[in-house]
């Protein structure tokens, strides 16, 4: 379940984008690194967010987030009050709301989530904080091998 081979590429993808919003002197914080768009730490968004590319949020967002076939990452500085729908969702910061991950939802060791999760695969790293419920449907979302490995855990 703690699939490192899948987790590493996510970190790499997020890293360049995070750098772009890191310097405090830069006022604008919405950038696109080619693969991942970043909403920087100084950005405050209220409303509905839709897109067709991967998104890293380091700022504050209230509302709903829809990234149908793309990946959403809430960075360590991100504070979100929203329902989110994406292919994969990774939470390293704070999120209050419901998460719907088509493939999986990951809450990392720094992540804090209050809400409900619907995903075929949910990963909760050591140190992560989560309150709410998780809707898991092993038969619908998992290849047989994954279900078998969970059985032997």
């Amino acid at each position, binding site marked *: *379940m*703690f699939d490192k081979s899948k987790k590493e590429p996510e970190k790499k993808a997020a890293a360049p984008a995070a750098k772009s919003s890191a310097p405090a002197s830069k006022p604008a914080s919405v950038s696109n690194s080619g693969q991942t768009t970043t909403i920087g730490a100084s950005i405050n968004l209220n409303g509905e967010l839709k897109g067709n590319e991967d998104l890293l949020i380091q700022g504050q967002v209230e509302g709903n987030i829809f990234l149908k076939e793309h990946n959403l990452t809430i960075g360590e500085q991100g504070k979100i009050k929203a329902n989110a729908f994406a292919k994969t969702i990774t939470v390293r910061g704070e999120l209050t709301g419901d998460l719907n991950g088509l493939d999986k939802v990951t809450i990392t060791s720094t992540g804090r989530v209050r809400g*409900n999760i619907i995903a075929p*695969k*949910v*990963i*909760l*790293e*050591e140190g*992560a*904080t*989560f*309150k*709410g*419920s*998780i*809707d*898991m*449907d*092993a*038969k*619908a979302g*998992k290849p047989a091998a994954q*279900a078998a490995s*969970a*059985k*032997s*855990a």
Partner: protein
Amino acid sequence: MALFAKPRGEPQVRQPAQPGFSELGCPAFAGLVEAMHAREEKTDPKFGILDLAKASGNHIQFFSQFRCKYHIGDVLDAMESWPVPGEDTPVVDLETLLPLHNTDGLDLILAWDGLNYLHPELLPLLSGHLAGKCNPGAWLHAFVYTRGDMPALPLRFDILSPEKMRCTRRGDDWVGAPCPPQRVLESRLPEFRVVQSRLLQNGLHEYLFQVSRH
């Protein structure tokens, strides 16, 4: 009224006689998992599971083999914010403490170590609250101390297999344990009846209850 008992007396610091973790067999839990698989083959249910402990990736991973809605209760987290017994305090609002919205009913409650840290007077309240959320035949699985003392903080349980768990102690402080005998425990959880009970190697008593009335 307080929901949780504070540890009785001052924590005693003592040299750990055992390492901070141990592995234990859990035959009742193994039987429970088997029963869940059997129920799954017959009726393809979507289990409602309530874990009273903190969210654990290990538990979630294990139960992801079932179609289920897995609720994190994390009731012990609220322990610090509730007043000590005897103080003139409002009645416990379990609906707020344990919100179980959008659930089709619970089929399994995991009370791993939590019952040891709840004030005995409040167990019947919790029992009634939980039983009201249970589907017929729902299980409650618990570990209860039988020795005179217990760690000041609840153990962490990791499922290694249906037959085996690892329990990890956090800190070296110990406090008095309530150690209720089975008949006392049953009287405090009147909506549940014991269907299996085993004394385990490390002094924990493993109980499997089943809801008997709503």
